[in-house]
């Protein structure tokens, strides 16, 4: 989309007039989201800047096109960054110190890869059937098999469990088939 290219290029050329449009249009939505979810206006501003830088770096490394609009893409990036921020405090509790130091030193790169991996997983889930998508979303959000049977009209919990196993297997195959998977996998 030409409109998206305009914003992507504006980031790499530091075109403040075009970038200001994003501040005017998208930042208020980000503020609303962050404030509604345990943050403050200052947090929203930080997240917004980080998301713009992150998108610029990604575009510089591998120019990409955006399926939705740039503003929707930016908003999703901000939501993800805030979700990450909320989970950050519990992350290093039992991890290796050396690994932690490497992570902190290269945090920007790690965040970027985490975002790319999330998108890769989301694309694979979107490629799954509607039924698989529904049952997996329930499964990963700890919904009980009893509730799955009720909500998705399966005949028994055993059937629901088998369905989860099959859908999960297919999802993992889709992820592993992606050319991006190797760069994002853990060693």
């Amino acid at each position, binding site marked *: 989309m030409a409109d998206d290219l305009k914003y992507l290029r504006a980031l790499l050329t530091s075109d403040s007039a075009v*970038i200001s449009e994003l501040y005017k249009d998208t930042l208020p939505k980000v503020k609303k989201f962050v404030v509604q979810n345990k943050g403050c206006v200052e947090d929203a501003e930080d997240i917004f800047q980080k998301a713009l830088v992150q998108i610029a770096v990604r575009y510089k490394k591998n120019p990409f096109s955006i399926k939705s609009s740039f503003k929707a893409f930016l908003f999703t990036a901000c939501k993800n960054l805030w979700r990450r921020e909320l989970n950050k405090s519990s992350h290093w509790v039992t991890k290796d110190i050396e690994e932690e130091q490497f*992570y902190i030193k290269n945090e920007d790169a790690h965040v970027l890869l985490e975002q790319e991996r999330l998108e890769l997983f989301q694309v694979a889930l979107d490629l799954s059937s509607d039924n698989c998508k529904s049952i997996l979303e329930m499964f990963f959000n700890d919904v009980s098999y009893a509730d799955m049977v009720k909500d998705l009209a399966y005949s028994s919990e055993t059937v629901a469990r088998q369905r989860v196993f099959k859908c999960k297997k297919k999802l993992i195959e889709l992820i592993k088939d992606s050319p991006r998977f190797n760069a994002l996998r853990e060693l």
Partner: protein
Amino acid sequence: MITPDNLLLEKYFKNSLTHEEHAQFEIRKKDSKFVEQLIIEQQLHDTFHKAGWSFANNVDKTVISEYQELFNDEDIVNLKATLKNIDHSSEPIKSRYDFRWKHLIYAAAASVVIIISVSQFNGTNSTPDHVYATYLDKNQLTYSIVRDGDSQSALDEATALFIDEKYKEAMPIIENSIITSQENLPAFYLLKGISLMEMGSYDDAIIAYDQLISSDFLDAEKGYWYKGLLYLKKGDEKKALMIFNKIRKEHLYNAGKATEIIELLN
């Protein structure tokens, strides 16, 4: 009996491995294919759980270094400087500090209420109604509200009425705030639910809590906590226990307190 890998992993993530299965799990972890499956399933759980996040650990260091270098690229450094300037020039300095000190006042008020309610609870009287009165902390809710400039006076008025237990008078203001203010919606749903609950309008209060539960807000899970308290107040111990068990099992908001209530009632 050998548990299949699929089931073993599922039980691991649900924290429900038996002693034998735990031993089997440790043995299976010596198999690199099993570990690969474990890692990707962990990532899937962390990614697709609405409140979670999958952190990237132990990724190829060359890939990491390539990306990290780009953050110091000239174009990106220029962009960072531009964003800093745009931020300073175009963003109005909102009453950020104004609502922060208000938080402190409300937090202080909440602490007083907590101390009073804890000291009143002698641990022997555990009727549902008494447990309800002990665990309902209305001030805890009000201090998390963030003020926005436009509706501040209405909000202050509603909150003051709510704290004074003038629920009937507070309701129209709360209802109006739900319609007109996009900020603090989770807190408003709870203000509405608790006000209705205190007035004995249980069915309407449940609707308010369910609206919160079915929303996408990160605070949606608080709806379960207050719904559980509602059933306690209503005297429906069975339904209350069902909800508190769900909170405990799924580690939702106030899972520790839910466990206490379950122990008190059983």
